[in-house]
């Protein structure tokens, strides 16, 4: 190889390394902007959510202030009018069709705004990120970012991120066959200096509904109950282990959370009771799949925005370490 060829090879190598690094930084910049916007902006908006044959309009109010931290209210505009109200320490799911309110404890973040949770360089082992063209969504210029998985264990995402604020304006999710399975898109959006408390109040009074609360029973330190998953897709790691009681259940369950940074799978392990009816097999709600199986003493359920094959792989390798 001549000197000229060697020099050319070095230039090409440096050039490709620089392009990769620049792309990583650019992707990370957009994701950080989106993450920050999701937790720090005051806004109200209407969006449509589509899954399968169903197209639903929803109203979202998001508020942040020093006194209350981050709060949000999401209300379906359909005839049933389910709503979710999220505050710093709890999540209320108001279900008028079953006249009940489910109360889940909010995930306690150590700091506000929460730390950016993604390591983009690690994600690039399992996803391909492509910055695509900029487009208008709800009258605002948005940067399109396509996130394509390198295997069939997770879903693909296409994001439209507001170039000014970073707010996610539109999102599509694709299954392992690259078929669109879910979409959300703002149709009206207003950023505001201040959000009145009234806009975050539930539409019901507490007397009308049955309130059902989740009860936490944290593990003793250095113990997570002995349950583990032996077979995880590349890039997945254990994020959280909880021991708590579901709103409608009398027994405590183990809840293990596995994530690759973008996709998440929850594994719920619940002791069998005589009367309880359990999901066995697959079910789905939009992009969320569920796969349940029953052992001699336990019902094991895997839930997540991943293909069914991933849930089966994880669920079938749940193991109790003595």
């Amino acid at each position: 190889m001549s000197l000229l060829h060697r020099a050319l090879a070095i230039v090409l190598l440096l050039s490709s390394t620089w392009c990769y690094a620049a792309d990583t930084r650019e992707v990370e910049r957009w994701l950080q902007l989106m993450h920050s916007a999701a937790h720090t902006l005051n806004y109200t908006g209407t969006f449509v959510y589509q899954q399968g044959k169903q197209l639903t309009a929803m109203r979202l109010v998001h508020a942040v202030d020093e006194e209350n931290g981050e709060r949000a209210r999401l209300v379906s505009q359909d005839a049933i009018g389910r709503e979710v109200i999220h505050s710093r320490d709890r999540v209320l799911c108001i279900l008028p069709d079953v006249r009940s309110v489910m109360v889940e404890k909010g995930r306690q973040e150590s700091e506000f705004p929460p730390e950016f949770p993604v390591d983009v360089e690690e994600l690039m082992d399992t996803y391909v990120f492509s910055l695509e063209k900029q487009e208008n969504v709800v009258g605002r210029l948005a940067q399109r970012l396509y996130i394509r998985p390198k295997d069939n264990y997770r879903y693909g995402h296409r994001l439209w991120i507001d170039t000014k604020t970073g707010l996610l304006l539109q999102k599509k999710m694709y299954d392992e066959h690259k078929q669109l399975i879910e979409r959300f898109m703002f149709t009206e959006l207003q950023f505001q200096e201040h959000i009145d408390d009234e806009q975050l109040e539930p539409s019901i009074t507490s007397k009308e509904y049955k309130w059902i609360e989740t009860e936490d029973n944290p593990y003793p330190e250095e113990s997570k109950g002995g349950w583990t998953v032996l077979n995880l897709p590349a890039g997945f790691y254990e994020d959280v282990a909880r021991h708590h009681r579901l709103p409608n259940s009398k027994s405590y369950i183990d809840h293990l959370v596995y994530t690759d940074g973008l996709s998440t799978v929850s594994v719920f392990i619940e002791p069998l009771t005589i009367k309880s009816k359990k999901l066995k097999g697959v079910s789905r709600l939009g992009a969320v799949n569920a796969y349940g199986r029953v052992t001699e003493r336990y019902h094991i359920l895997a839930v997540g925005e991943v293909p069914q094959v991933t849930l089966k792989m994880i669920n079938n390798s749940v193991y109790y370490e003595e």
Partner: protein
Amino acid sequence: MKNELKESLSAFMDGEATAQQALFEQFKVNAAMRHTWARYHLIRDVMKHRHVSQATVLSQRVAQALQDEPILFAPQHKRRITRHTGQLIGWSVAASLMLVTAIWFSQRTLSVDEEAVGLTAFNQEGQATAEVEQTLSDYIVSHNEYSASAKMQGMLPYTRLISYSSTQQQAGNRIE
């Protein structure tokens, strides 16, 4: 609303129904039918990227926003609308009804009956019981709170839960 009535309504909308008078009578007394009629028009116009009327701002915005999304929807069957005078009168009356019902309908859920075939259909092997559906909702709430998408995108994961109702979910569950 019964399936036969839905089919008649759909056929009428396509200019194919014959018993129009009977349908008009139903319009007067059947609120569900008026609702469905408005929904059909809204959906059709959304799919054809047309504005419905000035009655619903949301539907216009949906139509505008969906304009660049051909992948979602199956090609429309070619409809042949005859120029028969009776049918034109029928359409005029129907348009008036649509205007009234579209105002009433406003921002309700749209059930896209045929068009959204680009999206993966749910399994059809069986129906979940109400008890299992409720439990699944509990699990999904717990899952959402700890999911990566909630960290990155705030409230969006909860949209699945609140867009759901017991009559809408179709699942491939086996209950033991």
